[in-house]
């Protein structure tokens, strides 16, 4: 970007001649961060793993849509040896509690559960639940946190007090307990096509409680930004508060939102697994890593390790990749928060 500087100004302000002589190459925070991440093979590897999970999740969405329209067999139909229309095929029904067997039908590669359902298919479909919970919960939480944090920090006074009161109230109840309580309150609540006792309630519950961290960080950052000269200048030139907030404050705290998103994603995935394990997450019958682990608790004692291992391994690599990528992202975007 070329900067035009009038000659009188250039003469008055020391150092501007150099800018005039050599146009400044823009090195914004974003291009800097992208460059940093591009050089970082660990970050790229983790991003690839996350993308893989996302692909599996999207595949899961398509699979369920196709299964609903009888194009591909559902989990149950695979288990009972039926085709997509419920007609028996020459493949025998899947054995129940079968150990992993690579020579059998592909659905039995990771073994089957007590119902004969494929552990492999369940694990793959579990990715859909985890990824969608991580994504949607944060799509709810991060904008709320961003907006409330910016408002609290910029306006101060009573708006600040109300928002701080709101998040300190929510924060004074341990997260998992609050989640459980909200999910409890959502029992049997329906609103149009949304069924809050199921996974929609999970999105909302996680969204409602996980904006706190974002809000805190954004508020603290806005408190600093508010005192900076360019904000003062904007205010002095008569810009409306809302416009300053949108044009000057929000773009400068956006990196915090992105960091929060990546950290919140991990939290949401882990919370979903714990809630589903407790039976408060996804509805019964929907494959999820948490419900798989719950079902496998007793299996493990009987020596049936495959369902548990599949779910735990799937979750391990997702959380590992998300954790490391989140760290690298934070390092790239916010040098002050950098891990030494």
């Amino acid at each position, binding site marked *: 970007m070329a900067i035009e500087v009038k000659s009188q100004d250039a003469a008055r302000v020391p150092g501007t001649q150099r800018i005039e002589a050599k146009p400044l190459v823009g090195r914004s925070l974003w291009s800097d961060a992208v460059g940093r991440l591009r050089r970082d093979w660990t970050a790229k590897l983790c991003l690839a793993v996350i993308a893989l999970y996302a692909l599996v999740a999207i595949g899961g969405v398509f699979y369920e849509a196709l299964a609903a329209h009888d194009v591909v067999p559902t989990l149950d139909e695979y288990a009972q040896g039926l085709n997509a229309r419920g007609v028996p095929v020459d493949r025998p029904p899947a054995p129940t509690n079968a150990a992993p067997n690579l020579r059998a039908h592909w659905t039995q590669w990771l073994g089957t559960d007590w119902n004969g359902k494929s552990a492999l298919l369940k694990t793959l479909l579990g990715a859909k639940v985890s990824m969608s919970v991580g994504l949607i919960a944060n799509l709810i939480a991060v904008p709320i946190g961003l907006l409330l944090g910016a408002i609290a920090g910029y306006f101060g006074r009573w708006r600040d007090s109300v928002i701080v009161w709101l998040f300190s109230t*929510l924060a*004074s109840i341990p997260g998992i*307990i609050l989640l459980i*309580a909200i999910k409890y309150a959502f029992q049997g609540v329906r609103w149009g096509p949304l069924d809050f006792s199921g996974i929609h309630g999970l999105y909302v519950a996680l969204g409602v409680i996980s904006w706190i961290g974002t809000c805190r960080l954004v508020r603290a950052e806005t408190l600093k930004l508010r005192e900076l000269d360019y904000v003062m200048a904007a205010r002095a030139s008569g810009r409306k508060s809302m416009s300053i907030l949108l044009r000057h404050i929000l773009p400068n705290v956006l990196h915090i939102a992105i960091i929060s998103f990546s950290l919140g994603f991990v939290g949401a995935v882990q919370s979903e697994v714990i809630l589903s394990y407790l039976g408060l997450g996804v509805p019964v019958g929907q494959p999820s890593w948490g419900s798989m682990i719950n079902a496998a608790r007793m299996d493990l004692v009987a020596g049936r390790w495959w369902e548990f291992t599949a779910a735990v391994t799937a979750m391990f690599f997702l959380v590992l990749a998300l954790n490391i990528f989140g760290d690298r992202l934070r390092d790239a975007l916010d040098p002050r928060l950098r891990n030494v």
Partner: protein
Amino acid sequence: MLLYVLRRIGWSLLTVFGVMVLTFLLFRLSAGDIAAAHVGEKATERAKAVFLHKYGYHLPTLLNVHRRLVLTDATDGNRPLNVADAKGSNAAEALGLILETVEAPPPTEAGDDEPPPPAVVPRVLVGHYVPFLDDQTPLPALTRNAPLAPQAKAPAPKAGEEAATQSATAEPATQPGTAEPSTQPTTAQASSPPTTGEAAPRAIMVFRLSDGTELKVDFTGATTAGDVLEAVNRHPHNDGRLVASFSPRGPLTVFDSQFFHHLQRSVTFQARSLRDERKLTAIIAQHGPASLAVSVPALGIGWAMAIIVASLVAYYRGSWGDKIGVFLSVLGMAVPFLAFLILGQWITFHLAPARAYGTFYPSNVYVPVLIIALASLGGQVRFYRTIILDETNRDYVRTARAKGVPLPGILFKHVLKNCMLPILTNVIMTIPFLILGNLLVEQSFGIAGLGDLMISSIQSRDETIMNGLVFLLALVYTAGILVTDLSYTLFDPRVRLR
């Protein structure tokens, strides 16, 4: 300083109030059909209504600007006042009448010289709360918030007759049953407001008073609440035996609502279990020790391990030990807690089956403690390492090394003291879990602690217990944060209180 302390305390009180509002929203307003969950789906409407009365669910939600119809028995027998018969009409349900079984009769009832009647004898019938009830309130309004569900069975007129004749001889305890057959016409009429022009069905109620006498009141043609009062009080054969009135309304009855009762019960911990009517405090006292027995050692050991490992790793920054430590803690953070839990229990089961479940042996506590400590280690080490690294780069550490201070002296005397602030905050954050124990660990190891209690309360919809636990946690947490904030000056003189 004093001003800061006061403001800080005021802020904490506001937060606690916020928590009470939140628990009210979560556990009280979203109750759903709580009576059906506890009395049973098939219970009579009256049984459900009695349950709701018992736990105060019948009260107005936020502010009590309501009144209700009260029928008071002025005779001095020892039998309960009840509706002996509600013939051919909506009667009892139309008026929203319900037996009072929980609240003792008002003290003005029994004179001071008379021996007070046993509290179980209901001598008052009350209606449902109706906002701004007065003489002009139309009759259907009385039933508006009555939990009326049409009974499945169609009432045959014969059955009604039978019930009526039966009730004349049966024990008063069977009365709720006799009111049942008349429910169907009740709802039919309640949905179409009775007008004087139409041929309104006859509404006759027979009250059995406490001295055994009966009073037959004809409500036919009554359209407003005032008509109901008149029908009872001006009854030719009443002679002051049964007094109908509206519940009194004073400046303080405004606070006689679910919300203010919730606040009061939360603060005083006076709630009772919806399941077995045990006191909340007794339940917490029973379950608390088991939770503490697991969580205190677990957090203590976990914290000590994390600090030691983090200090060492941070001190030898950049070495292989550091890299391996960080790598392991990143891996540890990614292992789901459930995996630690279930694998730990599985291994225990193979080594010593008796130690894998329950609290029969005191040594059963070791495995859960170890699991909690190990599972949290990864995250803790990383967190503390970052904090300690900030300090180990400072000049005073280099000076101490140059002077030849031994490693433990540097780490635990100088560095740790300077990182106390964030560490302390982090420890306070874990205090709620100290009390609650660990939900998952307690549940799967069969430890009857508060976490286990929480989960079983959710499963049995025991809202008062859940509310009590959540409030206790929030209270302790808020108090902890308050104490930390105030004690910052002790550990860090750089922090100046405004």
